[in-house]
């Protein structure tokens, strides 16, 4: 996987220039300027490459969003009303809230599959008008095309963008390796497990190097074990690519496991009722007491009227919901994986030394 393509910092001049990139695209005659930029770039404070959340700039701006479902009975509350949120470039933001609170609607608006009744969505400084490959969406249900092999699925968005066959193949190979599906490229989706399909969907979503990766409860239909493993996977992919990710979930544990920041949404019309900053180093360890405490904080912020119990009517185990994910259990035994890729997530075990520090 190559370094993520830097996007033009249109409205954020504070972003330091990407020196290597300037260098590579400059015409030969401009070598003096390039040298200068190169030198200056080296002097400027730069965000460390592996901590994407430290990057500057707004990737996504939602301003005054109102959305009422067309055909809804008059007088019923809008799904969204005057909703504001900002997502920084490289940030992993989780939207958590009860089922039906409008968090999926929010993602569909950002993806451009729905149009807001009023308000404005800007992605990378540009107004969102309709769906586009710069905002990739990973769906809850299997959305891989059943008539295409895994590799053809990953290649599909590249084909739409007009990449050559050789480029498509190379990129698909890279992405399938990134999500640890190498060797399965010829398989059809029905031949893959649910977890593999979602990893394939993530690879496909990353194919065109979108500015924002939107994930709409991507693991809600998976068993808890697979789900935990895929959370590790998302964190790993995020660390490797530095993508801006907006992740929707109704699981409190999943929210604090993944998010830099958790926005807790209330009932309709939906608004942010709490913002929980998850300042826990990565890769994170399941069972970290700080995560458990933050999960309790998120759970407490959830709308009282329906309460956390309203969350339990979900496909996954009830124990996964309330943030009581065995807070004092040692970290290691939680992830006895059956797939070879789990080896990659082993470094996080050492982080367990920080247990309790945040309390």
């Amino acid at each position, binding site marked *: 996987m190559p370094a993520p393509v830097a996007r033009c910092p249109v409205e954020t001049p504070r972003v330091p220039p990407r020196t290597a990139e300037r260098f590579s695209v400059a015409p030969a005659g401009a070598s003096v300027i390039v040298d200068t930029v190169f030198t200056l770039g080296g002097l400027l404070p730069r965000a460390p490459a592996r901590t994407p959340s430290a990057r500057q700039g707004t990737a996504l701006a939602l301003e005054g969003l109102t959305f009422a479902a067309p055909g809804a009975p008059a007088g019923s509350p809008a799904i969204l009303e005057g909703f504001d949120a900002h997502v920084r470039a490289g940030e992993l933001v989780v939207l958590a809230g009860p089922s039906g609170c409008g968090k999926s609607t929010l993602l569909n608006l950002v993806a451009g599959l729905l149009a807001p009744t009023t308000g404005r969505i800007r992605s990378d400084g540009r107004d969102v008008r309709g769906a586009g490959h710069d905002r990739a969406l990973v*769906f809850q249900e299997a*959305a891989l095309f059943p008539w295409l092999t895994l590799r053809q699925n990953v290649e599909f968005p590249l084909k739409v963008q007009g990449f050559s066959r050789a480029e498509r193949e190379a990129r698909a190979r890279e992405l399938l390796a990134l999500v640890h599906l190498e060797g399965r490229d010829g398989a059809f989706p029905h031949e893959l497990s649910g977890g593999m399909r979602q990893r394939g969907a993530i690879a*496909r979503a990353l194919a065109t190097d979108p500015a924002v990766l939107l994930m709409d409860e991507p693991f809600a239909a998976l068993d808890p074990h697979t789900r935990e493993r895929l959370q590790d996977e998302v964190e790993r992919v995020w660390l490797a690519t530095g993508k801006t990710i907006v992740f929707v979930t109704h699981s409190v544990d999943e929210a604090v496991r993944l998010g830099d920041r958790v926005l807790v949404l209330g009932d309709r019309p939906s608004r942010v009722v709490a913002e929980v900053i998850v300042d826990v180093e990565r890769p994170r360890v399941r069972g970290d007491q700080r995560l458990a405490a933050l999960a309790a904080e998120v759970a407490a912020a959830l709308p009282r009227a329906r309460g956390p119990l309203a969350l339990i009517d979900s496909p996954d185990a009830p124990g996964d919901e309330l943030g009581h994910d065995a807070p004092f259990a040692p970290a290691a035994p939680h992830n006895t994986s059956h797939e070879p890729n789990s080896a990659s997530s082993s470094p996080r075990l050492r982080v367990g030394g920080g247990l309790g520090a945040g309390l």
Partner: protein
Amino acid sequence: MAAWALASSLAASALFPGPLPVAAAVVEGVRNGTLPSALALTLARLLAGYTAAMVLGIPLGLGLARIAPLREAVGPLVFGLSAVPSICWLPLAILWFGLSEWAIQLVVILGAMLPIAVATESSVRTIPPVIHRAARTMGASGARLLFEVTLPAAFPGILGGAKLGWTFALRSLMAGELLFVSGGLGQLLETGRDLGDTALVLAVVLVIVLLGRASEALLFARLDGVVTRRWGAEVLP
């Protein structure tokens, strides 16, 4: 086969020939050339009519599923007419075109096109919405969306319609050929009836059965295999 032989020997009637006279009639038909030429003619008609039915029926079904005004305007008509046995069109066809090739083709095309259109419509309409939403977020639109997403996604259902259409085309054609001097297998059946040659009638029926089986094996078995391999066994139409 044994039961057939036993039953016909018990009946001991010229109206119920056993396997041997029927086999002899097939051999005789092949030897004197009537059976192969009738088969060729029928097959040519079938392919022409069926192709036309596919070419008209699939876009019609697609339009019915996707274009609301079209669905409202001609949907009830198409669904209503698809319930009409195609042979019912023959009198009208004969009034319009006389006893001609066109009359037969009208019956074949109508008979096959409507089930193809109905199957296409329902399979396109029932494509999981997430497929199109995913395609749109990947930037697919227009012809690419149609040919690389919608039609492939609906393929198992369209294949089901295509198989149904083939059977309907064959039935309509036999019915059409029975009615006048057409030179096909249907007319050969009629000849058998005129001559009181039940062995010939059964021989032609046997050929039609084999034609149905062969077309199944040659045309559709591979496509069924494609669907099973890609979608898994449970989606087979």
